């Protein structure tokens, strides 16, 4: 199966045409140099600490509205390094370090291009965290002292407090005295190192010995197997981050809902993999099994979303749309609620559907879903009414009709 995008090939523009477009664009640019916005009054590369300090002063006087973003200031420290006071953090840059500081809202983002920076961050209680990005590593801090270095590898050392290191979905928490290091995705030259310092050890342990998330506490990473095992153990026991891993949604769904999902589409779906049942299921009656064996019609496709998000989409559809689109929305709502083990909410959506769209496209599916919900609870009057309704509208001759007929006769 190919993607639709693979079937539509972009026809490139000829060079002449591109050149014409380019000429037209350049000709349309303002003839005079526009005034630079205040934040760009700072030269892009500040070569010495004194210039950097001036830039930061200019930057700091910009009012800090809660939603405003003060755009980047870039700093390149000279050979002797630089000390920069950001107001709520002090950055001491090592020789040759270069980085950019951005303030989206009340957060502080520092993008480390190369070199080493030491930071002393005032408590950020009540404010967004300060984050240092080095390669694809994010170091998130709420108030502490630490350093980040980026060269052939990214290294984080914590002096005081706690920081969170995030990379590729893995999160590590470092406390004072911890050091975390791993190869950079995009290595940059270490500006403080002599040219001959890089090779040797780095190339030996780069591929396998120090993998993603490797963390070395209170010492230097050696690629030693035991150290890596310890690390993995810590990562494995950390609270899972993924939504649905241990969330309330799974609790709500329960075993019944999960097994329904599998029956319906014949697959185990992402995020709801089954584990062996803790307690054996009670024996299932033949009627109950036959009801469960009947697949439920899937609602209209809204892409790869589930749970609350899917419910929101279907609800919007039900409320905002009219006619067939609205009826599809109500059926989708019922389907999602049933999938989450919220049978009563599913029944409410089904009831609304039947009163608003007595001749809706999903009528048969709606009536079967109601029968299924009610009769899997208990074969009582409500269940039998649902079965009668099904037979009345959809007949008693098909496989489902025959099951409905058996329900009406069941005790």
């Amino acid at each position, binding site marked *: 199966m190919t993607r639709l995008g693979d079937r539509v090939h972009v026809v490139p523009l000829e060079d002449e045409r591109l050149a014409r477009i380019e000429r037209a664009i350049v000709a*349309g640019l303002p003839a005079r140099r526009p005034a630079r916005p205040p934040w760009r009054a700072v030269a892009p590369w500040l070569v010495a600490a004194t210039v950097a300090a001036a830039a930061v002063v200019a930057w700091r006087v910009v009012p800090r509205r809660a939603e405003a973003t003060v*755009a980047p200031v870039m700093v390149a420290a000279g050979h002797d390094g630089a000390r920069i006071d950001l107001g709520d953090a002090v950055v001491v840059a090592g020789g040759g370090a270069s980085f950019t500081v951005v303030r989206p809202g009340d957060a502080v983002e520092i993008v480390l291009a190369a070199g080493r920076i030491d930071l002393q961050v005032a408590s950020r209680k009540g404010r967004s965290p300060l984050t240092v990005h080095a390669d694809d590593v994010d170091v998130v801090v709420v108030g502490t002292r630490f350093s980040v270095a980026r060269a052939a590898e990214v290294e984080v050392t914590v002096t005081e407090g706690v920081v969170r290191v995030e990379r590729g979905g893995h999160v590590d928490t470092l406390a004072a005295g911890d050091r975390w290091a791993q190869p950079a995705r995009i290595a940059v030259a270490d500006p403080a190192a002599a040219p001959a310092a890089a090779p040797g050890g780095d190339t030996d342990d780069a591929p396998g010995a120090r993998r993603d998330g490797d963390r070395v506490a209170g010492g230097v990473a050696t690629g030693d197997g035991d150290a890596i095992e310890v690390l993995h153990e810590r990562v494995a026991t950390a609270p899972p981050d993924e939504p649905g891993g241990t969330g309330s949604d799974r609790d709500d769904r329960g075993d019944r809902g999960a097994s329904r999902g599998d029956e319906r589409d014949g697959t185990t779906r992402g995020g709801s993999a089954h584990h062996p049942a803790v307690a054996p299921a009670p024996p299932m009656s033949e009627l109950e099994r036959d009801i469960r064996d009947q697949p439920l019609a899937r609602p209209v496709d809204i892409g790869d979303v589930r749970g609350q998000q899917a419910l929101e989409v279907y609800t919007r559809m039900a409320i905002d749309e009219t006619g067939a689109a609205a009826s599809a929305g109500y059926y989708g709502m019922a389907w999602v609620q049933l999938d989450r083990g919220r049978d009563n909410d599913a029944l409410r959506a089904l009831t609304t559907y039947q009163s608003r769209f007595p001749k809706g496209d999903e009528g048969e599916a709606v009536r079967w879903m109601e029968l299924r919900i009610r009769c899997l609870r208990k074969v009582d009057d409500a269940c039998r009414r649902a079965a009668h309704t099904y037979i009345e509208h959809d007949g008693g001759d098909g496989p489902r009709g025959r099951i409905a007929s058996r329900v009406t006769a069941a005790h």
Partner: protein
Amino acid sequence: MAVSAAYIEDVVLVDRCIGGEQAAARDLFRRHRARVHASLFRVLGGNRDMDDLMQETFLQVFQSLPQWRAEASLATWIDRIAVRVAYRWLRRRGPAPPPLELFDDDAVVPASLGGVRRQLARDGVRRLYAALDQVTPAARIAFTLHEIDGRSVAEVAELTGATVTATKVRLWRARRQLDAVKAGDPVLRELLDGTGGAA
């Protein structure tokens, strides 16, 4: 904010553009033109009005560069402008037949297909865009960016300035419309059902 390896280069380039350097403007255009063109092509289905759209997009980019705050990557920010330009163009144009160029241009279908399959694929693409002409511009943009340009729903939402939920509803509307058309159009059905990402 999104951080990429090209982030600092972007900032420097933008700074030079704002400073009025024509060489920087050319550089910025050349860096981003292929991606912008590809996205616009997939939204519109052809190159007929591409010169105007590319010009309009990049002129707006250069006019707005002082407002770029590095909250998004430069590429995303430019794409957002391109999508806005496409949206306005689609709204101005209203329902219309797809560009004739698309019917005749062999390059619009993969070169690996031959003979009848190639003809079918070309017809399928033509019919797809004819069907998309009946879809609202917002739904068309959502569908083409997601299903054809291969962007995630979240990315589409970001580019169009809509919520993820609204984007999903737009996708759903487009799919529903295409479902209705393909029911009576075996060529379009072959195109859509032969792929994993369509209605």
